[in-house]
């Protein structure tokens, strides 16, 4: 994640990532969707309070607001970091989840044999804070706590993932924009001889990069999931960029895991959960 593009706060508009100079010993607060962060950079110690409102749908965004300790949420958790002589500059950047995400559409979508569809799903991002742009990392935590799930044919074989239920919209115009969620375009191709009910999909977010558009929206690489003609065969591939013609986005974070552009072959169940 070293290629993040940083801009001065006044140039960022509604973007919460980048670097922010902090006045020494003063408290500043951020609110990124449900995630709230308060930072005080002292001479020898930085204090970071975090709390989550639990409302995954909120669009709240507050950046480096002057505040005092009485406004810190009562249930906030505090981390003290010993930093002697560090420049009081806070770096923030988004990252995708540290495990793959299993998306379950509220209402399953069916892909007819030989057809392809484009789905848009949004997944919460992790907020990574550091000292300055390239200094020591302070926190790497989710903007919203996700449910755990198991993705595999049985309880012996499989892998842990995060679970989210989404509307899985087919029209990009219907996708709500939230500061703490990144939009992933999923192309599902069904080359099989029968219908493919999409009621569970594993999105390999650990292998995706993050992009930012001009209006503070976050995007991931475009993912294509393909069900092959041969029974039980499927493939996933990742194309660099959001994959949406109207969106001009620049890359701000690298994938957590370098997986290459094509992976998870010959495992239909590992992608579609059936």
């Amino acid at each position: 994640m070293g290629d993040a593009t940083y801009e001065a706060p006044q140039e960022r508009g509604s973007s919460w990532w980048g670097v922010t100079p902090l006045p020494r010993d003063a408290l500043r607060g951020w609110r990124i969707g449900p995630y709230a962060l308060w930072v005080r950079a002292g001479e020898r110690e930085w204090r970071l309070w975090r709390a989550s409102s639990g409302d995954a749908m909120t669009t709240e965004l507050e950046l480096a607001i002057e505040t005092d300790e009485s406004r810190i949420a009562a249930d906030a958790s505090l981390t003290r970091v010993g930093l002697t002589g560090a420049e009081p500059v806070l770096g923030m950047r988004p990252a995708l989840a540290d495990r793959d995400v299993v998306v379950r559409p509220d209402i399953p979508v069916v892909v007819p044999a030989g057809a392809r569809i484009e789905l848009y799903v949004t997944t919460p991002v992790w907020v990574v804070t550091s000292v300055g742009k390239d200094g020591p990392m302070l926190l790497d935590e989710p903007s919203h706590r996700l449910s755990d799930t198991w993705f595999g044919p049985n309880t012996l074989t499989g892998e842990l993932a995060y679970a989210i239920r989404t509307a899985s919209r087919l029209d990009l115009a219907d996708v709500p924009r939230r500061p703490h969620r990144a939009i992933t375009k999923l192309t599902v191709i069904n080359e099989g001889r029968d219908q493919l009910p999409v009621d569970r999909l594993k999105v390999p977010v650990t292998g995706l990069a993050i992009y930012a558009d001009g209006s503070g929206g976050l995007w991931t690489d475009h993912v294509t999931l393909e069900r092959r003609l041969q029974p039980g065969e499927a493939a996933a591939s990742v194309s660099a960029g959001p994959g949406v013609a109207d969106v001009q986005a620049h890359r701000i974070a690298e994938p957590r895991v370098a997986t290459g552009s094509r992976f998870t072959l010959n495992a239909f169940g590992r992608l579609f959960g059936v």
Partner: protein
Amino acid sequence: MGWLSSVANALHLHMSGEQLGALARAGVYVVLGIVLARLAAVAVNRATRHMSAQERVLLRRLASYLVMGLFFASALREAGFRFDVLLGAAGIVTVAVGFASQTSASNMISGLFLMLERSIAIGDVINVSGTVGEVLSVDLLSTRLRTFDNLLVRIPNQTMVSTMITNYNRLPIRRFDLQVGVAYKEDLAMVEKTLLDIADRNPLCLEDPAPLLIANGFGASSIDYQLSVWAKRENWLELRNRITREVKAGFDDLGIEIPFPHVSVYTGSASQPFPVALTTPSAARPPDAGPGPGGETAGGGPGAADVGGRPQSQQDPA
């Protein structure tokens, strides 16, 4: 060598200079063997960082014993020990040692099987005949556990092989079964929805495998349910604590009663309840005199007497 001669003289051992020299060389071999065995163990330890703790310990010991064995054999030969004599007596020695160390040999072989079978590894939390602890080592003769109250338990490998072992660390997800009873008067559809909603809201509870709700039947005092939820192994204990707390809070919010065990007493017929009157203690009675024979009736409509019910603090069965 002078000091060696002095020691030999002091011990009234009549040894020639050559014999003393051989003995000294044997000593050097032993010391060298110990040092080199330790170095070999360190080298193997460094070279096997990518392996599991169990495999590393096994290889480390193998290297250490091998080096030490070679040097000890050399030391014995240097000291004049004749191996052909040992081989000649091997049959008799084997029988004698076999009888004497039957249990030890059995433990050693069992330890070998344990290592090969890989059912447990160092660091695993296991349950052996009711003893739960973390595996510290699988040694030649025994397996050592550290219990959670910090006791060291040594279990002979023979016992480990012949008894049932439950390994809590082997699989990444684990289920917790919450047993809960609700009063007979409750709306069971609401109870079931409440339990499943609580599981659904808890982020530690895996969405898949989905939470399972089983009606265990009509109990003596309650209708009994089992809520089975899955969690990541590391989160199991936290889930267990949280889900119990959340079920209690959820039921309290909705006024769903979790009944204590109680018994209904009738006077011969279910339609004729045992007459019971609640009394208020008289001010004149001493506090330890126990309940009086009669008194005022409080809410005294006829009804079956619940003996037990929600007990007073001194009667709390818990």
